[in-house]
Structures are given as C-alpha cells and as structure tokens.
C-alpha cells in the first residue's frame, strides 16, 4: 500500500548571518491514511522544522536542501507556487503552538474561517457562513453563530486553538500537522484539545502528525512515535512498544527523566548530563554518543542508520540489538544519590501564612467608573516548615505567582499575615525587607530574564556578597564556593549569561539565591522553561542542596507530576484559593477534591500502562477572577457540583472551608465523593454522572495497536 505521505532523507538548513544551522539532517518516515504519528523531541531537535518542511513553508532564511516529500504520490517539493497553495489548507493543514498569535487580531472569526473555506472552494458567503457554524460546532465551541462575530481577543487560548482546528478542518484535509498544539495551554484545556483531535481522527479518519516535546501527550494521542534528536529520527515504532521497551538510549533516558504520576514518587529522575548538539557543526558519529555513558568507540565515528528492529520498529543505534531491553543508564557522579528522603521529622514552622489576600486594580466596569478589584489571592493559609518542600500547584491565573511575590516581600498583601520565624513580616520597611530577604530568596521560571545580560557571572554573584560587606579574597572564595555548590566551575566568573545553556543559567540563578545564605527559597516554576532532561538536573540539584544546606522550598508549579516529585506536601490552588492540601502521597494518591482529581487525571502520562486510566475532561475554562463564582469557586465546572446535580445548591451559596490544621485538608462540601480510579480499574468515576453529558466527559483510551 502506498503511504499517504512519504518523507525521504529530508535536509533543512537555516542560512543565518552567523553561519548555517542544519536543523534537519536526513529525516525519513511514512504516514498512512488515518494514522496518528507523533514526532517528539526537545528544543533544537528539528521537530518543528520538519513539520514546516512538510508543507514546504520553511521560513527564510531556512531552506529545504535535499530529500523528497511525496504526498499522495506527488512530489511536494516539485509543486509550483499555486499548486502548493492549493494543497495547503485543503489536503494538508496545520495548527500552531500559540493559537492566540495564529489568529489575525484585526479580523472577525467569521471572516478568518470564511477565508479558509473560500480559498479552496468557490461557494457563496452565506454557504461559507453556514459551513463556519458547522465547523465551530464540531470543535465544541458553544453558541457558534454569536461567537463568529467576535474578534479573536474575545477568545481564550483554548477556544482560539479550537478555532484553529476548525480552520484546519475547513476543507476536509487528509492530514493535520499539529505543531505543539497544547504547549501554551493549561493542563485541563490541553485535555480538551487532545480530545478534539482524537475525536476528529477517529470520526473522520484524518491523519494527525503531532509535534511535541511531551511524552505523555504522545502516549495519549498517537499510535506511532518518531523520536528526534540532533536533527534525525533516532527511533520510531508503535508508541506503546517504544515507550515500554525503548531501543535507543536517548528514548530510554528521556523517559527516565520525565516525572510520571504512574510511578512511585521516590523513583529517581535520570538527569542527562551535557547538552544537545548546537546544530551548527557537523555531527560525527551518533549525535547522542557524547551524552551516553554506554556509547562504544564506533558511536563516536560512524553515524548509525535507522535499522529495522522487531515488527514495525526502527532504531538508529550501534549498541542496541533491537530486541533485548537496553541496560538502564548508569549513575554518573554528577547524577547524585537519589535515595528518597525518609519522612523527616517536620522541623519548626519557618513561614506562617494566614488568611493571605491580595487585590489588584482591574479594568473599570464602566467608562470613568471605579476600577474593579481582582482578588488574585483570597484567604490563603499555610505553613512552611524547616527543611521541607511545600508544593503549590495550579493553572495559569490561579494566583500562585502572586503568592510567590508576597512571600518574597516584593508585593505587600491586602490582608492577612506572613510570619517568618515567629516574627511578623507582613509589611516591611525597606531595611526590614532587606533583612527578611537574607532568609527568603527566589528562583525564577525563565533563567534568561533572571540574569542581567550586561553583567558577568562573577559580578552578578559578587554584588550580594559585597552588599553583605565581603571584600577581596574572602569574597572571591565565597563566590567560587557558590559556583561549585551548583556544579559550575569557578573559572566561568568572567563569562556572560548568554554563553550558557538554559540549565546552566538556572544553576547560576540558584547560586545567586544562595549568596545571602537563605533558609527558604521560593521556586516559581523553576523548571518549567527547561527541557525535560535539564529539568531533572535542576530538580536533583535542588534536592541535593536541600540535604546539604537544610533549605526549605516553596515550590510553585503547574505540572503535578513534577511538583509531586520534589514536594513533601502539596497545596492545590484554584482561583485564588487553596482547595486541597496534604502530603504529596495524600494529594496525588488519594485526592479528595474534585478539582484535584480532574487535574490529576488530565496530566498525560507516557507510561503505556497508564493509558487505560480514566480521564476526566473538565468542560469550560477557569472563570475570570474579576467576577469569581459565588460559594465554591469551582462549582461552575465541578463534575459533582450543582450543574450536574440540582440538589447541590449549597455549592453555589456557601463557601466550603478546609481545616488548615488538618494533615489532609479539603475545601469541598462533598469531599471524597469523587475519587481517582487508578490504572487498571474499570470502575466508572462516579456512578451518578451520565456519560458524555454535562461538564464531564469520561474517556478511556483503548489500548493502542
């Protein structure tokens, strides 16, 4: 059978002013009609460039140098401009990573959809309008007639992505290329979008090529996977088989570096040392050999080709034989001891936060009227104890970053109190804040913007030391000790931040935070901007520093799997309030709040055994904090709330509270009613909920073939 799409030896190079960047270095794969294929890799692996190459729309200064792309028997690269135009959006279409940026902000949705329809078929405007309504309906946008008149600014990220999918579907394409379609979205919205893609693949037989860095997303949506590294596919095969028994060391390490909910939380994450190739120099031998401790001499001199293994599997590796499992990655000196921390006796409470509230000025309700108040944080109470890690999890806009700023002391709370080591630290004078910050420091999300591009590493680290009164040799010794502490060489003091990779930069940020010898570090999405392999390095470093220096962390994140891996206790936040808090085991193993349950079930897991796990797809999106729902703030989306059960008026009227003293506190009137059903179980989530109706959709993926 002729495959729908066939790519052979694709090479795409960017001819930049700093010399050529060989982004794609010989990629070959086939796609059958109706198939779902994932191309997975970290940043710089060439996966996105491969995607844009497929439709021959690589941006300047990029150019497809050689190879062939055959779509339905016709060479895409030989098509004329007009033939290409006719193919794009009709037979093959594409959706993008940032759906908000992919919609023209000045044009009504109706016109943008109509344009996509009418670019390929000569139909009347009213027929196009009818088709647009049908498409909007298909991708699950409520009230399509009205929404069509809106401008993109009225659409949230998730809704924008639905519009993009509707546009991609406009002409019944045979392939949709989805370039990181859920990366910019929250996890509950991600679940919705994956569901839309899954449905259109199953109902309409549209083939999907999914470009992603997220192994969990791959496992959830795609039958087949191609793993890219250094501009090449290093391994490909049925997703379940590849993930169960990886045959390329990179696949193996990537899987081992990914935090998984399906694993016990004390299974160590493998940190892959080194950094990916820059793609500027030619790669001799296997591109992964320098990072693989088990590489043999041949790996460094001769590039392995993609060899057939068992069944439909292929891998490019000299070490693997294609059948037996690869040995696990040996522990290197850098990848430190990962013995799970014994449930250490909780130290004294270091930070006591009570009833913390923060209001911001919002937009005016009416012209010249009073400004509305946004309660970003609304009555939050928690303690951080000596030597522990408290995780704070929530979706974007829930107020978790505001908590970081409040605890750090750079913002003042509107209400409530913050006590540090027994002392009131709620509102501080400049001098008192400086003293306070000797104890409380921060590690930011984006290591690039956290480092002043104008200053050397040395001067960045010296400043806080000098401000403490250190001088001369003492200062230099302390500076070098800090660098050593985070695993960097003291010789880098004269270099500038841009000379370092993301992971190294994050180490420098940590070193700076340690410069004042703090006791508590707020980690605000500290690993979210990093590739998986680097994430594991930083998480391991944070754990090591905690053991050596007795630090406490307030670890803020959006990814439950990651937070679970580092935190001793976890708080889950929704719209400015804590909905559930307890030990990491309790919150992730036995969640009691329906929001926590939904959040957990929405996290995609690469473990093939987790595929049969039930997923709760919350409908709708987080309401605006300008006008939060009354009573329980979650009631508008709650799978067991008043929208599902009319007798539960209490959720609308009465705000549930959790006992902050309890080891496991849940702010829900019906705590524990809605629980997570573990993998393997086939029991429905809640017997009362009718399938496929209301705010909840339950899906169980059939095992992949």
């Amino acid at each position: 059978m002729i495959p729908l799409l066939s790519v052979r030896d694709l090479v795409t190079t960017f001819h930049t002013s700093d010399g050529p960047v060989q982004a794609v270095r010989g990629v070959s794969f086939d796609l059958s009609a109706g198939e779902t294929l994932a191309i997975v890799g970290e940043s710089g692996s060439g996966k996105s460039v491969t995607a844009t190459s497929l439709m021959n729309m690589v941006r300047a200064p990029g150019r497809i140098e050689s190879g062939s792309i055959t779509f339905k028997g016709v060479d895409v690269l030989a098509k004329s401009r007009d033939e290409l135009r006719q193919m794009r959006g009709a037979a093959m279409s594409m959706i993008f990573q940032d759906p908000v940026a992919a919609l023209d902000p000045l044009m009504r949705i109706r016109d943008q959809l109509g344009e996509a329809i009418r670019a390929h078929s000569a139909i009347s405007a009213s027929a196009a309008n009818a088709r647009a309504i049908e498409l909007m309906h298909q991708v699950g946008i409520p009230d399509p007639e009205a929404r069509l008149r809106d401008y993109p600014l009225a659409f949230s990220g998730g809704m924008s992505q639905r519009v993009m999918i509707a546009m991609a579907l406009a002409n019944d394409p045979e392939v949709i290329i989805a370039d990181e379609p859920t990366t910019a979205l929250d996890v509950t919205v991600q679940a919705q979008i994956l569901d839309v893609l899954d449905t259109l693949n199953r109902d309409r037989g549209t083939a999907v090529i999914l470009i992603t860095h997220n192994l969990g997303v791959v496992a959830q949506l795609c039958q087949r996977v191609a793993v890219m590294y250094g501009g090449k596919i290093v391994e490909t095969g049925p997703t379940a088989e590849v993930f169960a028994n990886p045959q390329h060391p990179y696949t193996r390490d990537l899987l081992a570096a990914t935090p998984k909910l399906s694993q016990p939380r004390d299974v160590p994450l493998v940190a892959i040392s080194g950094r990916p190739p820059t793609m500027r120099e030619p790669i001799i031998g296997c591109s992964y050999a320098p990072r693989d401790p088990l590489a043999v001499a041949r790996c460094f001199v001769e590039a392995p080709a993609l060899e057939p293994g068992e069944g439909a599997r292929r891998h490019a590796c000299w070490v693997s034989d294609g059948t037996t499992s690869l040995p696990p990655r040996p522990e290197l000196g850098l990848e430190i001891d990962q013995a799970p921390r014994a449930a250490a006796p909780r130290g004294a409470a270091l930070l006591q936060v009570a009833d913390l509230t923060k209001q911001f000025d919002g937009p005016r309700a009416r012209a010249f009227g009073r400004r509305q108040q946004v309660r970003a944080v609304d009555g939050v109470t928690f303690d951080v104890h000596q030597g522990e890690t408290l995780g704070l999890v929530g979706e974007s806009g829930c107020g978790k970053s505001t908590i970081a700023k409040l605890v750090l002391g750079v913002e003042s709370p509107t209400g409530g109190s913050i006590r540090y080591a027994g002392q009131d630290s709620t509102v501080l004078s400049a001098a008192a804040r400086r003293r306070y910050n000797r104890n409380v420091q921060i590690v930011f999300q984006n290591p690039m913007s956290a480092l002043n591009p104008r200053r050397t590493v040395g001067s960045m680290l010296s400043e806080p030391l000098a401000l403490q009164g250190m001088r001369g040799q003492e200062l230099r010794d302390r500076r070098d000790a800090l660098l050593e502490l985070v695993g960097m060489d003291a010789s880098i003091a004269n270099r500038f931040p841009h000379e370092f990779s993301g992971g190294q930069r994050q180490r420098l940020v940590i070193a700076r935070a340690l410069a004042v010898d703090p006791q508590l570090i707020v980690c605000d999405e500290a690993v979210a901007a990093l590739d998986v392999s680097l994430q594991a390095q930083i998480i391991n470093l944070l754990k090591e520093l905690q053991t050596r220096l007795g630090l406490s962390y307030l670890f803020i994140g959006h990814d439950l799997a990651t937070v679970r891996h580092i935190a001793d206790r976890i708080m889950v936040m929704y719209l400015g309030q804590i909905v559930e808090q307890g030990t990491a085991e309790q919150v992730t193993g036995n969640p009691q709040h329906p929001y926590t349950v939904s959040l957990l079930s929405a996290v995609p897991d690469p473990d093939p055994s987790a595929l049969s796990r039930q997923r709760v797809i919350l409908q709708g999106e987080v309401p605006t904090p300008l006008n939060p729902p009354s009573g329980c703030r979650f009631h508008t989306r709650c799978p067991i709330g008043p929208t599902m059960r009319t007798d539960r008026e209490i959720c609308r009227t009465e705000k549930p509270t959790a006992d902050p003293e309890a080891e496991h506190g849940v702010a829900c009137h019906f705590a524990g009613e809605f629980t997570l059903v573990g993998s393997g179980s086939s029991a429905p989530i809640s017997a009362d909920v009718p399938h496929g109706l209301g705010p909840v959709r339950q899906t169980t993926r059939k095992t992949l073939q």
Partner: protein
Amino acid sequence: MLIFTAKRVLSGLIVLLVASVVIFFILRLAPGDPAAALAGADADQATIDAIRTRLGLDLPLWQQYASWLGGILTGNLGDSFILSAPIAELIGDSLPNTVFLAGGALLLALVGGAVVGIVLGVSRRRAVNSVFTAANSVAFAVPPYVTGVFLTLVFSIYLGVLPSGGVGPGLGDPVGAIPYLLLPAVTLALPTGATIARFLAASMRRQREEDFVQAGIAKGLTTTTLFARHVIPNSLPPVLTVLGIQIGQLLAGAIIVEVVFAWPGVGQLILQSVITRDYLLTQVLLLLAVAVFVVMQTLTDLADAALDPRVRMGIR
C-alpha cells in the same frame, strides 16, 4: 467606540488647556516690558502706563489669562499692535494658504509613503530594498530648507520650469496655483512621506513574521490576499501613531517651506510675530499650532481604534 471617542476628545481638550497655560505664562517670561516696547523708545511713563492699562497688563496674571482664554472661546482673538489689525483677520488671510500647502503635502506624503512602504515591505529582493532604502533615508534626513533651496535651484533657476515662490493666482484659482504649489508641497512632503514609508516597511516586515501570517500560508491564501487582508492592516497601527506625531513635524516644516518659497501663510506670520516681539499674535498662533496637532492626533487615534478592536476595548 463612542466612549472611546469621548475619552480621546476629552484628553485632547486637557492637553490643549495645559498648552494654553504653558504658552501664556511662558511668553511672560520674556525680559522687558511689552508696553514699553510698544510705546517706542522715547515715550514717557504716562504713555506707557496708558498702553499697559489698555492692554490689561496691569491686572494680575491669572486675570489676564482668564480674559485671554475667554476671548478665544468667544471668538475674540484680540489685536496685533505691531500690525495694527485684528488677529482673526490676519489668520483668516494666511491660514487658507497654509492649509492648501500642508494639505497638498500630506496627500503627497500619504500616497508616496504608502507606495514606497508597501514596495519595501513586500519585496524580498536585496537590490530593490537597498536602492529604495537608501533613497528613503536621504528623503528622510535631508532638511526641508536644503531640499527647498535645491529644488528651486534645479527647477526654477536652472531648468526654469516652475516658479520659485509665491502662491501665484492664489486660492481663488486653485488649478492655476498648482504649479506654484508643486515645489513647496514636494519639499514639505518628502520627510513625512519617507517616515511613513520607513515605518510602514518596518512594520510590514515585522508582521510578516507573525504566526497568523504563517497560518494564512497554511490555509492556502494567495500572497495578494495575505498582504492585503492580513499583513497591511496589521502594519497600520504603528504607522498611524507615527503619522500623528509627524503632523507636528509637517507643521514645523510648513514654516520653513513658507520661508523658502515666500508662501504667505501662518508660518511666515508667526516668525514675523516672534521677530517683532508681537507676543499677542505669537501666543494665539502657537495655540493654533498645538490645536491643529491635537486634532490630528485625536483623528489618528480614532482611526487606530476603528481599525483595531483591541484599542477600542482598551487592551492596547
């Protein structure tokens, strides 16, 4: 949109009010006694005092300001004592000429700037780009007094095809006045047109890289549709902002061009008033300049809002 318009008009009025205060009081900083200057070198104190009383210069400053502003609001602009004529009349004589000049120049600048900007924004050919960019930089940088003298040298003196100054038959015969308008309008239009072209091209190049353009290609839109419906509309807001500021430059340029080409407009009038220290005339004309600028700014803001729903919503 209505609320947006009301807000913009209101803020324009506030700027105007502040500007009137600034203009009125700052001109009082000038050393010397205007009454004494008016009376002449050998006038006695009584004459000077009489003039002072007649001008209301003996009143407290804020009262002077109030009566001045009140006069303007009721259409009484006062008299120029140097030229012994009502200021309203002086403006009435010269303003139409300036509007004719500035209007012609603005039209030329918009058309020329749009054409060059779009060529620069669309073209990917290096040769086209560098030639147009270089020409544009020159038009952008060369001051209008140099351009004006140069064009006079070439077209009036050397070629002798166009008149070197004046309005010719004047506004009574606009068609007949066009040869007279040509050189001044081109001189005045060049820097503004070049600025529009430059910002439009830069804005288009930025927009061309946006994701929604990439999405448009992926939809299968033709290049023409892509540019006409997506790239160009999205490129306009920054150009509008610049255009609003350029109006001020255009007014200043008009003053220079009126001098170069002996064009009897408001620019000449204001210069004359400054040189003869006719401060009553100066302050009215300055306020007029600020008013024109504020009106044009408000218009460009409204155009921006008409174009961009985000501006209407107050998001951008």
